[in-house]
């Protein structure tokens, strides 16, 4: 078993609302696993079920070989959870917040560890400022620190990059990759389809159901590429498969001639492809 997370037939009902319908998926250790879906897809519910904050209506959950409800105390030492909302104390400083959540676990050199995580998210110079005065993106980073402080084996991040500017977003994903490289498993939800690119594997969730599971490369390959060719000054376009073979085949058919002065290939963005998959499922 090299799965950090195993989910089998997980269903969650809130009264009449079926928030999760028979979800089955596995997450290998040390990967960045993306959970993509529109608002209300059930991302938060799934993450909360995995951290033991939501009781499943039926199905089996296994996180690091443990049950999130029955083995909660043992499990809580090994997982980090960053909720969708900032979930910080506004009247405390960034450092005080991290220390408070850190003190729930036995951590050696907590003070030093706090400084390290603050440095990791580049907030060292604001460490002692009240969270009340922070921007949304800065709060997200403090929140991440609180989830990281006890060096968990799995990190559950619920929309960690929502409302964060593009520069910082890229930085965050670099940070997540650094963590994954050190052996941490990351389970990250997002409603931004283009962020799928940064994951090792993504699950697309809609209306509580999984509608696709794949690597970002495979998802891109399922889309189309538009090839624009300028031959003898005449511009033509054709649509081909977004696979490397697709491009090679097309070029072979064309045969390279001196009259072809320009070739450009524009593959579908992952955002479009995911949106198309979601749209297709809405029709059915």
């Amino acid at each position, binding site marked *: 078993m090299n799965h950090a997370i195993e989910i089998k037939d997980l269903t969650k009902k809130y009264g009449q609302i079926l928030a999760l319908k028979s979800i089955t998926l596995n997450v290998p250790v040390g990967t960045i696993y993306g959970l993509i879906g529109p608002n209300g897809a059930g991302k938060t519910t799934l993450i909360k079920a995995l951290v*033991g904050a*939501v009781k499943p209506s039926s199905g089996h959950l296994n996180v690091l070989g443990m049950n999130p409800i029955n083995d*909660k105390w043992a499990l809580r030492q090994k*997982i980090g959870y960053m909720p969708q*909302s900032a*979930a*910080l*104390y506004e009247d*405390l400083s960034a450092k005080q917040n991290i220390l408070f959540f850190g003190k729930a676990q036995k951590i050696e050199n907590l003070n030093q560890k706090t400084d390290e995580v603050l440095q990791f998210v580049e907030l060292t110079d604001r460490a002692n400022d009240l969270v009340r005065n922070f921007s949304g993106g800065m709060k997200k980073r403090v929140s991440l620190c*609180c989830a990281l402080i006890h060096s968990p084996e799995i990190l559950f991040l619920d929309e960690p990059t929502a409302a964060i500017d593009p520069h910082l977003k890229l930085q965050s994903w670099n940070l997540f990759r650094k963590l994954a490289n050190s052996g941490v498993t990351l389970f990250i939800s997002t409603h931004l389809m283009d962020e799928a690119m940064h994951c090792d594997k993504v699950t697309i969730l809609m209306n509580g159901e999984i509608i696709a599971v794949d690597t970002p490369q495979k998802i891109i390959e399922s889309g189309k590429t538009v090839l624009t060719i300028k031959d003898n000054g005449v511009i033509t376009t054709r649509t081909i498969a977004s696979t490397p073979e697709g491009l090679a085949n097309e070029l072979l058919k064309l045969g390279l001639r001196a009259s072809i002065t320009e070739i450009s290939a524009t593959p579908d963005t992952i955002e479009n492809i995911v949106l198309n998959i979601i749209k297709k499922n809405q029709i059915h």
Partner: protein
Amino acid sequence: MKTFIVANRVLKQLKGDKRLLILSIVAPLIIIYFLKLLFDAFPPNVPITNFTIPIGALVVHFLSFLLCAILLVQERTKGTLERMLIGGYKRSSIIGGYTLGYLGLATIQAAVVLIESVWLFDLDYSYNVLILLFFVIWLLAVVSVMLGIFISTFARHEGHVFPFIPLLILPSIFLSGLLINTDELPQWAAFVGKCLPLHYAVNIIHEIIKPVFLISETYFDFAMLGAYVFLLWLCASLSLKETE
């Protein structure tokens, strides 16, 4: 151990919110002062001393309840409560920590109310009586904090706390024996009055401010307040849900 960490955080938070802190200490001061103005306008034969300390106790009772309930509801809406639980804090530590933290504030409130009342109304109580009075107000504040925690578990947002304000405060004023002896009320009203924790605090206060008082007369009422603390603590622990 973690109880103290939570308590420490609650205190730090209160310290961080200066406006709230100042208001929650100044508000009782102002109310007691208004009470003084009101009582000064009363005819001289009204036994004012029977009302002053009990009303002080009511103010502390009510404010501790409100503050604790609202701050705990905020924890729920902001998600910090969930984060505490998933982060490894136990329910018992959270409830214990909140109680300890708010007692810090309630202790200050109780002292402030007592000192101001004694000074404004020229009350001439012995040290023994003063210490007992302080203890009663303080014990009632413990009840309030527990009640606040308990009520907060039913609220999805701060607004849900407000209906409980008249529900707690009006019967407390009219039925608990603060203004009229509970036994003179119709049976059902007397029953409601006796369900209110303030009733027992008022009983104790009325006994110990007698020129000659019997401490044994207060045992039952102290026991009732203790029972309230225990019962509400139990209810709060059971109603604070960890999972949805």
